[in-house]
C-alpha cells in the first residue's frame, strides 16, 4: 500500500522561515534588477551577485523548505534527522547574505558566505541521502532525489574549487569550473528536482490519471546523462563533449515537455487558478528558452543566450516555484492550524486561504515583467529591460504580501 506521509510531516515553524525568507530574497532580487543593464557579461561580479541572490536566496531556499515537507511524501518515510533543517536555515540565510554582499560590496565576505552555504548544502544533501537509505520504494521521483543530491554535492565541490581558484589557493580554470558548477547546480539539482516532483505534484493538483510515464523516464535518463557529460566536459575542458551534453539535455527536456503534454491532456480540473496559470506560463517560457538557446548555438549571438537563460530562470523556474507556493503554503498552514478542527467546527478550504486578487496581480505583473525583460535582453534595449524589471518588482511585492497573509492565516 502506498504509505502515508502526514505522520512524518515537519512542523510549520520549521518550514515557514524558508518560504518567507525565500520570498524576501526574491523581492530583493527583483528590486536589484532595476540597477542592471541588458548588455552584461557573466564575468561581472555584480551579475554573479544577482545570480546567487536569485538562485541561492530564492530558488534553493524555497526548494530546501519544500523538500523538508515533500521528501517524506516522495520517499514514504520520515526524515533521517528532520531537525537539521533548523541548522540549515540560518546557515543558508547568513551564507547567501554574505556571498551577495561579497560580490556586490565587500569581496572579503565572499569566502565566509560561501563556506556557510557550502556547509548548509552538505548538511542538506547528506540528510537527504540518509533519508533515501531508509526508503524501501524505488520510483522515478526517488531516483531523481538520489541523482539530484549527487549533482548538488558535485556543484558544491566545484563552487568551492572556484572560490579557492579565485583566491589563488588552487590552480584551476575558473571559467570552465564555473560552467561545471552552474550545470551541476541548475541542471543537475534544480531541473532534475523539478522533473521528479512534476510527476507527483502536477497530476496531484490537476487530478490527471492514467497517463503513460514513458516520456518522463526517458527525459530523466537523458538529463542525468546530459548533465554528467557537460559536467565532465567542462571539468576537463573538452568542448565537443559539452556540446554533446547540451544536445542530450535538450532532447531530454523535450521528452519532459511531451510528458507534461500527456498529463495536461488528461487534466480533470479545468479551473485556471493561480497554479494552473503559472504552470502554463512556466512551460511556455521553457519552450521559448529552448528555442532561443538553439538559436544561440546556431548564431553565437550573446543576446540570444541572455534571453534564453532569462526565460529559463525567470519564466520557467520562478513560475514553477511561485505557482506551487499558492498550493503548498496554504496546505501547510491548514494542516497545522485547521486539520485538528475537522469535524469539530467549520474549517476553510485551501483556496480560501489566499487573496485571489493578490495572487492574480502577482501573476500578471510577473508575466508582463518576464516578457518585457526578456524582450529587453533580446533587442538589448535598456528601457524595455527596466520596464520588465519594474513589473517584476511589483509582482514580487504582491507575492510578498500574499505570502505573509497566507502564513498568518488563522493565527
Amino acid at each position, binding site marked *: 500500500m502506498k504509505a502515508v506521509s502526514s505522520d512524518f510531516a515537519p512542523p510549520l515553524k520549521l518550514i515557514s522561515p524558508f518560504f518567507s525568507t525565500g520570498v524576501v530574497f526574491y523581492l530583493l532580487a527583483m528590486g536589484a534588477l532595476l540597477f542592471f543593464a541588458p548588455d552584461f557579461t557573466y564575468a561581472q561580479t555584480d551579475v554573479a551577485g544577482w545570480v546567487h541572490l536569485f538562485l541561492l536566496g530564492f530558488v534553493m531556499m524555497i526548494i530546501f523548505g519544500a523538500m523538508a515537507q515533500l521528501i517524506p511524501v516522495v520517499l514514504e518515510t520520515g526524515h533521517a534527522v528532520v531537525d537539521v533543517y533548523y541548522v540549515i536555515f540560518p546557515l543558508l540565510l547568513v551564507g547567501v547574505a554574505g556571498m551577495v554582499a561579497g560580490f556586490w560590496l565587500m569581496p572579503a565576505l565572499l569566502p565566509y558566505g560561501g563556506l556557510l552555504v557550502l556547509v548548509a548544502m552538505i548538511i542538506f544533501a547528506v540528510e537527504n541521502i540518509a533519508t533515501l537509505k531508509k526508503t524501501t520504494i524505488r520510483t522515478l521521483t526517488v531516483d531523481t532525489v538520489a541523482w539530484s543530491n549527487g549533482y548538488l554535492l558535485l556543484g558544491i565541490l566545484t563552487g568551492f574549487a572556484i572560490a579557492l581558484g579565485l583566491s589563488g589557493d588552487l590552480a584551476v580554470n575558473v571559467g570552465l569550473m564555473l560552467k561545471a558548477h552552474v550545470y551541476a547546480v541548475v541542471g543537475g539539482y534544480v531541473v532534475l528536482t523539478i522533473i521528479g516532483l512534476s510527476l507527483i505534484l502536477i497530476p496531484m493538483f490537476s*487530478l490527471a490519471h492514467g497517463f503513460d510515464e514513458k516520456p518522463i523516464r526517458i527525459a530523466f535518463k537523458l538529463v542525468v546523462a546530459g548533465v554528467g557529460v557537460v559536467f565532465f566536459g567542462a571539468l576537463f575542458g573538452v568542448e565537443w563533449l559539452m556540446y554533446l551534453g547540451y544536445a542530450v539535455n535538450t532532447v531530454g527536456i523535450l521528452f519532459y515537455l511531451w510528458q507534461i503534454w500527456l498529463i495536461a491532456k488528461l487534466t480533470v*480540473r479545468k479551473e485556471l487558478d493561480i497554479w494552473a496559470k503559472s504552470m502554463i506560463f512556466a512551460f511556455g517560457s521553457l519552450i521559448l528558452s529552448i528555442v532561443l538557446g538553439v538559436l544561440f548555438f546556431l548564431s553565437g549571438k550573446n543576446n540570444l543566450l541572455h534571453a534564453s537563460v532569462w526565460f529559463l530562470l525567470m519564466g520557467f523556474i520562478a513560475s514553477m516555484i511561485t505557482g506551487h507556493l499558492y498550493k503548498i503554503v496554504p496546505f501547510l498552514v491548514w494542516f497545522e492550524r485547521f486539520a485538528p478542527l475537522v469535524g469539530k467546527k467549520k474549517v476553510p478550504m485551501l483556496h480560501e486561504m489566499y487573496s485571489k486578487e493578490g495572487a492574480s496581480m502577482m501573476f500578471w505583473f510577473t508575466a508582463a515583467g518576464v516578457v518585457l525583460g526578456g524582450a529587453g535582453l533580446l533587442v538589448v534595449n535598456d528601457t524595455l529591460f527596466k520596464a520588465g524589471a519594474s513589473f517584476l518588482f511589483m509582482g514580487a511585492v504582491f507575492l510578498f504580501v500574499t505570502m505573509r497573509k497566507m502564513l498568518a492565516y488563522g493565527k
Partner: protein
Amino acid sequence: MCDITKEMVYDAISTVIDPEVGFNLVEMGLIYDAIIDEKCNVHVVMTLSTQGCPLHQMITTWVKEAVERIEGVGEVEVEVVWEPAWNISMAHDNVKKALAGM
C-alpha cells in the same frame, strides 16, 4: 441484527470534505464500499484521488471518526485501495460539472 444501513454510513462520510477540491468524499466517488456485519462493525473501502497524498492518514482518520459517530456502530475499519484507480467518471455529476465542466 444490525439496523445500520450502507446509506447511513455514506451519509456520515459525506461530512468529510477534501480541503483541496472542496467536495465531500462521497460525491468525489472515493468511497467504494461499506460492508456492515451483523454486529454493526463497519468496513469502509475507499481510495484517494492521488497516491502520495499528504493527507492520506488524516482523511482515513476523519472517515473512521465520522462513521464512529453513528449511534450503535461497532468497530470501524477503513481500508484504502488503489484498484480500481479513481477517475473523474466515478464522481457525482455536480463534481464533474464543477471541476471538469462535464
